[in-house]
C-alpha cells in the first residue's frame, strides 16, 4: 500500500511516499522499520504509543489505534501534527 512519509522522516526513507505492507498499522510501521532502521522509534514510543505530535491517517481518516487492520489497497499517511510553530 502507499504510505505517505512526512518531511521529518524522509531522511530515513529518502522519499515522500513509499510502498509497504502490513495487516495493521503496527505491522506496517514494523515493516518500515525493517527497511528504514530507526524510523519506528521516532514516531512510536517504547510503550507502543504513537508519539504525542505524530498522527496516522488511513484513507483520509485519523486513526488512534495502531492495531487497526489494514487492507492492501488502503492509503496510509503519517504526518506531523500542526502542534504550533
Amino acid at each position, binding site marked *: 500500500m502507499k504510505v505517505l512519509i*512526512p518531511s*521529518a*522522516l524522509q531522511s530515513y526513507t529518502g522519499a515522500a511516499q513509499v510502498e509497504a505492507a502490513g495487516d495493521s498499522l503496527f505491522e506496517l510501521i514494523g515493516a518500515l522499520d525493517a527497511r528504514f*532502521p*530507526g524510523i519506528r*522509534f*521516532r*514516531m*512510536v*514510543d*517504547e*510503550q*507502543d*504509543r504513537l*508519539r504525542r*505530535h*505524530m498522527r496516522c491517517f488511513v484513507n483520509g481518516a485519523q486513526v488512534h489505534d495502531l492495531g487497526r487492520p489494514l487492507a492492501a489497497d488502503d492509503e496510509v499517511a503519517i504526518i*506531523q*501534527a500542526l*502542534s504550533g*510553530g
Partner: protein
Amino acid sequence: MREVGLLVATRKGAWIYRSDAARQEWHADGPHFLGHIIHHLVLDPRDRRTLLAAAKTGHLGPTIFRSTDFGKSWSEALRPPAFPKAAEGQAGRTVDHTFWLTPGHSSEPGVWYAGTSPQALFRSEDGGATWEGVTGFNDNPAYVGKLGGTQDGTPDGPKLHSLLVDPRDAGHLYLGMSGGGVHESTDGGENWAPLIDGMEVVAGFDAGQWAFHDPHCVALCPSNPDRLYQQNHCGIYRIDRPSDQWRRIGRAMPAEVGDIGFPIVVHPRDDRTAWVFPMDGTDVWPRTSPGGKPAAYVTRDAGDSWQRQDTGLPPQDAWWTVYRQAMASDTCDPVGLYVGTSSGGLWTSADEGEHWSVLAEHLPPIYAVETANLD
C-alpha cells in the same frame, strides 16, 4: 600546534568550533542537525574522534546520533535509550529526551552513560550504538516511583545530569537529578546511595528526603577526584570525600548577587579553583543575570572567597540565562572558559575569565557547551 574544539548544542542544531591554543580565531562548522533539539554534544576523549549527540525534534522521538570522524558523517544509534515495554495493564515509562552524555572510564573504551528525562540512567558498551537501562538505578525500589514524569519539576521535565566517573575507579560513579539530589555508586551502578547531607532545600520541604533536592550541576575536580563542587537550586556547595557533608561555599558570594545559578566549572589542574555564572534566584526565580549585568565568579580558595569577572561582558541591560550545561573550561594554560546563553550568544575567555569576548551571536538558544582536546 595544539587544537581546541568547542561543541555547541542548541535548541535548533549543533555547531563545532575549532581554534589553535591561542584561542583568538575560531572556525565554525555547522549547523549540524539544523532544526533538531540537541541537548548535548560530547567528544570521546579516549579516541578524540567519536562524537555523540543527544537529539530529538518537536515531533520526533529521542535518539542518539554518532560520528566516528569528528562530525564529517553521522549515523543513528541502533537502539537509543528507551525503557522496557511494560507488562500488559501496567503504565510504562517513556524517554522524552536524552539530556546528558558522559564517556566512561579510560579503562572501558566504548562505554558511555546517558541521563534522560524522565530521570533515568542508561549505559552503552559499544560507543553509543546500543543502550541499556541501568537497572540498579532505574528499577531500584528505593528510586523507582520517585523519579518523576516528563512534566514534573523543571519546566522541560526533570533531568538526570552530571554523570561523573571517578578517574581512579571505573565503578565509582556520581549523578545528579534536578528532582532530586546527588547519588553515588561504588559498584558500577548496581547499587546507589544518596549524598545529600548539608544540602539545603526550598523552605517548607524536608531536606532529609532526596527527592526534594535540586542540584543544578555537579563537577568533579580532575586534579583531586575526592573534591566535588555543586551549583544547586539552593546555593553553591563543595564536598571533600570521604566526608559525606556538603558545605555551602556560596555564602561567601556577594549578597546582592546571591549564589544561585545553573552551571559550575572546575579548573583542570587546581582543585581550589571553580567558576559559576550566577542567575537571579529571587521571588519567581527569574534565572537571568542579576541586575541585567552578566558575570562569572571565580573562587581560587575552594570557596572561601569569590571574585567577579565581567570585563568584556555587557555592562548592563543583558538579561542572560545560562543553562547548566552551557559553561565549560578547556585544559589549556591559562584555562579557557566558554559560556553560551539562551539568547544565542557564545562568549569565550582565554585567560581564566579575566577578559571575555563574543565568539558568536544570534545562535539558537544554547543548551550545552563542551570543549574537546583535538591534538
